[in-house]
């Protein structure tokens, strides 16, 4: 029996996933989570074989949750559900040791097969996502530029970003300027939009 944890913030989708997996003879849903920051605690409590994580969740996004899960419960394999709109997320998912990465609108059979294959130790990646990721390309941003742009995306001011990241305001402005130039944005809002769409943030 494959023990599955489901983390999805939208109640209807979560219920549908639970109902779908409950129909499978070889699967048991052992936990339903609606926030990303609850995933690790719940997983440590119920010890699932596979964690199915939505990429966008309140508290902590699915990829960060997968990274923490991999560090604290390496035996639990993660499958991330995503949309095609942010192809750069595949790279982040692989770095976060996600074993599966499939699109949300794939047929139900793809999800159940994926869970089985992941539980068997295989890696499941939608070819469409690979193609999309190859077309989008790697993020041109350095780790620090990404960090600064992500902080800017949360809406805080340059001074607050500088305090938060222990940098001077001039350095923050430099990082933002580099990031805007590298992603081809017209200003920081545009750079945030481009980077988010590509899945680089």
């Amino acid at each position, binding site marked *: 029996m494959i023990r599955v944890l489901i983390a999805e913030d939208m109640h209807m989708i979560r219920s549908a996933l639970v109902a779908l997996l409950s129909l499978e003879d070889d699967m048991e849903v052992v936990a339903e989570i609606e926030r990303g920051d609850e995933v690790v605690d719940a997983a440590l409590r119920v010890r699932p074989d596979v964690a199915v994580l939505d990429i966008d969740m309140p508290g902590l996004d699915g990829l960060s949750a997968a990274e923490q899960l991999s560090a604290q419960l390496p035996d639990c394999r993660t499958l991330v559900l995503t949309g*095609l709109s942010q192809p750069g997320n*595949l*790279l982040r998912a*692989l*770095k976060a040791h996600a074993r599966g990465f499939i699109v949300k*609108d794939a*047929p139900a059979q793809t999800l159940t097969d994926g869970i089985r294959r992941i539980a068997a*130790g*295989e*890696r*499941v*990646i939608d*070819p*469409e996502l*690979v*193609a*999309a*990721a*190859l*077309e*989008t*390309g*790697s993020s041109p941003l350095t780790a620090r530029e990404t960090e600064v742009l992500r902080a800017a995306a949360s809406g805080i001011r340059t001074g607050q970003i500088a305090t938060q990241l222990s940098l001077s305001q001039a350095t923050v402005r430099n990082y933002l300027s580099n990031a805007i130039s590298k992603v081809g944005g017209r200003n920081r809002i545009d750079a945030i939009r481009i980077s988010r769409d590509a899945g680089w943030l």
Partner: protein
Amino acid sequence: MGGLTELWRSDRVVRLAPVGAVACSAVLPLVQVGLAFSYVGNGVSTGLWSLAATAVYLPLHLRHVWYAARAHRPPLGGWSLVAMTAVILGATPLAGNMWPRAYTALVVSFLLVLPAPWSYLGYVVVVAAAAPVAHALGLSWTAAPWLTFSVLGGSAALLLLVWLAAALTRLQAAREALAQRAVMQERRRIDDDLRHSLGSALESIAARGDRAASIAKSEPAAAAADLTGLAQESRRTLAEARRRVRGYRQPSLRAELETAASLLTAAGIATRLDLPHGGIPDTIAPRSRGALRATVTRLLRAGPIGTCTITATVLDGRVLLDVRAGDSTETIEVRA
């Protein structure tokens, strides 16, 4: 250097060029007014005449320069040129023996406003007259040729500036026109492409939906089969739509290989890219691109398999990609 390049690439330089041309065109006449008060033999009245005449003709001249630098002919330019000529020539006996230097502005305006060959004729006549007029006003024969040289050099420099600004404006206009044409052609191509591919698929889906609805009550089993087929066709169409959209964005082969190496490395397969020093073609045929993506997907699914080396070689104009992962090697021929 990068900043300078950025500046030249930006539209700002195109916007500033006419302003620069006007500013430079204003400098010489203003210096001329300043000097009119200080030359030997010139009195205050000479300087004041020079100042008054300059105050009248300079706005007209700068108007000519402003329009010409933006690649336009000044409206009613003929009349403003007549007025300018009258002021400059009228001030000649009153504004001192160095006043013919103001002919620089006059000949520049001739070339900017008048059509050829009248503009060239006017230019030659006025430049040739500068030295004799200055001499008649009391300038020595040794100094007069320098005045001609001053008019020639000054007018050449100003004309060059105006021409450069106008050329930049024309270049930008041409670039915008090309970009607009390219956008139009691309829109038309995408429209045709979508109509011929996805359009027919969507029509088929709609027809199947209608059929399923009409037989839902009388033949539920057949309707269910139709709906299942409908769902499959919808997914195929969605996949086709995604393929089409991806097809419109073609990254370079190098960028695609670098991303592939990043993905494989992130998946635990240490990947090295070995590219020829001479570079690789930017474009890649859809079939070769598909083969490369299939290989990357297979390797990603296979999981940690040690190392992978992607080597690109150019042989007789053909590019070959050798993907060596573990014990297996796959060769993909890249066609542009």
